């Protein structure tokens, strides 16, 4: 199939990853090889097979809507790279 550098750059943008031109070229080659291997699945006719997304049958789990204190704001903010004691701080957006 052949993944182009432009496609790699588009995927990198979606994945929020930065790449140099050299890295993008090497990534394209590796993706090509790996995806070619994955294309072997096309040998199988799966037209009548229901996809299986999980080994357990998911059922909606309901619980009472009770507020429970599980942790403190302080503990959660404690791992933030930048915070003001109340909120996470990020670079200015507007």
């Amino acid at each position, binding site marked *: 199939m052949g993944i182009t550098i432009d496609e790699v750059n588009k995927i990198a943008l979606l994945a929020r990853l930065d790449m140099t031109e050299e890295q993008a070229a090497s990534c394209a080659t590796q993706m090509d090889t790996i995806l070619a291997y994955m294309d072997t699945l096309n040998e199988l006719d799966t037209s009548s097979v229901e996809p299986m997304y999980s080994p*357990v049958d998911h059922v909606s789990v309901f619980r009472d809507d009770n507020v429970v204190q599980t942790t403190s704001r302080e503990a959660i903010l404690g791992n933030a790279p930048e915070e003001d004691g109340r909120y996470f701080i990020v670079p200015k957006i507007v």
Partner: protein
Amino acid sequence: MASLHTHTLTQIRNLLASGEVTAQEATRDCLERIQTTEPHLHAVLFRNDEQALEQAQAMDKQGPNPQQKLWGVPILLKDILATQGMPTTCASKILQNFTPCYDAHLVTRLKEQGAIILGKNNLDEFAMGSSTENSAQGSTRNPWNLDHVPGGSSGGSASSVAACQAFASIGTDTGGSIRQPASFCGIVGLKPTYGRVSRFGLIAYGSSLDQAGPLTRTVEDAAIILSVIAGHDPRDSTSVNTPVPDYVAGLSAMKDLSGVRIGMPREYWGKGLAPEVAEACTRAMDTARQQGAEIVPVSLPHTSYAIATYYIIAMAEASSNLARFDGVRYGFRDKDAQDLLEMYTKSRSQGFGDEVKRRIMLGTYVLSAGYYDAYYKKAAQVRRIIREDFLKALQSCDVLGGPACPTTAFGLGQNTDDPLQMYLTDIFTTSLNLTGLPGLSLPVGVGRDSGLPVGLQLFGAGFQEERLLAIAHVLEQAMDPLPRPQGIEDVLK
């Protein structure tokens, strides 16, 4: 008392319960073992010495508690399990300063049962790898031969347990990450049925595949740990609410293998298998036959599609799970970025290692518009076909048996330049994660060419760990035990 660390978990537990050994003695002995072996193994990322000794001291004051299954037993945890007040880095630069404010569910269970957490084990970054060479903190070594990998991604856990740094470690298995390193290091590794152990607090890689389980030196030790960590947790909607049997009692209920049918999947015993692995595993099957088991040929015809299926699903799920690492709420942040998008991109690009980025890229690709049906949906369909193969084979057998890996532990650096070649080493383990069924790797000998351990993999029906453990236990008792790993002892001389 010298060399407590060479005991099995079962033995130390009995010595602790009877008061012959104190929790402090057991803890100190393991910590000293870690101190002497770590410069050569690099299996531990964080040492919890001070807290562990304080906890042991407090427990000794109270005396042994017969209600606690792991009273005073020192253990380690793979550094992908959330531990309150202890760093949880996933061996990634992006989480190098992260300390969770909660414990994973299974960590709470272990603590409730009196286990002493000695620290956190090295792994492939975010559990992505088969050799523990993808750790941002550097590779772990195999205690049998320090020039070889311990396997991965729970390579730190396997290396630690084989080298007697602790009596058990908890690993996680997404595509074989408990069973393959257990095989490479000559110990027991159990991947429970998906849903048997809560994933709450297990930092997600491939959510529909990940399952935590024990790495131990004996089958009985694995049964004890599983009896502690298994069970329903309402905080994990995929955690299944079925009763937890007494796994240890289940072991003594089975004396031999008469009436047991073990299936030999044709696809696991043919081409590509190293002769020394085939030899050791065949010997183990012969032992099973001598113990009364009936060995029957079976087929898992879609085995050759498992790796492609597994990696599509794992990478798709990884790209989605790892989107949370954006430098906003925790983890590494690039400080120079001028706007939000630049901050996300620079933080992630600097924080993640090459293999993680490769999987995020491939995962994003297979989920992107135009390719979803061709890759992700297709893989999910093949996943069902693979599961049906297993269910069909298990209709006529109690368990299936085959090698855990096609070779013994490979050399450090041997596969690092070729990601596809590295993925192909997981051929015998990945299928099981797709199906959700349980599997166990049992050490069955040392390869005659490499001098490194060989693991036999046994897999069974869903939630039938009791039978799997009992069969493995009979086999373990009937075979010669492996010698202790000599590589680490040689450098300590």
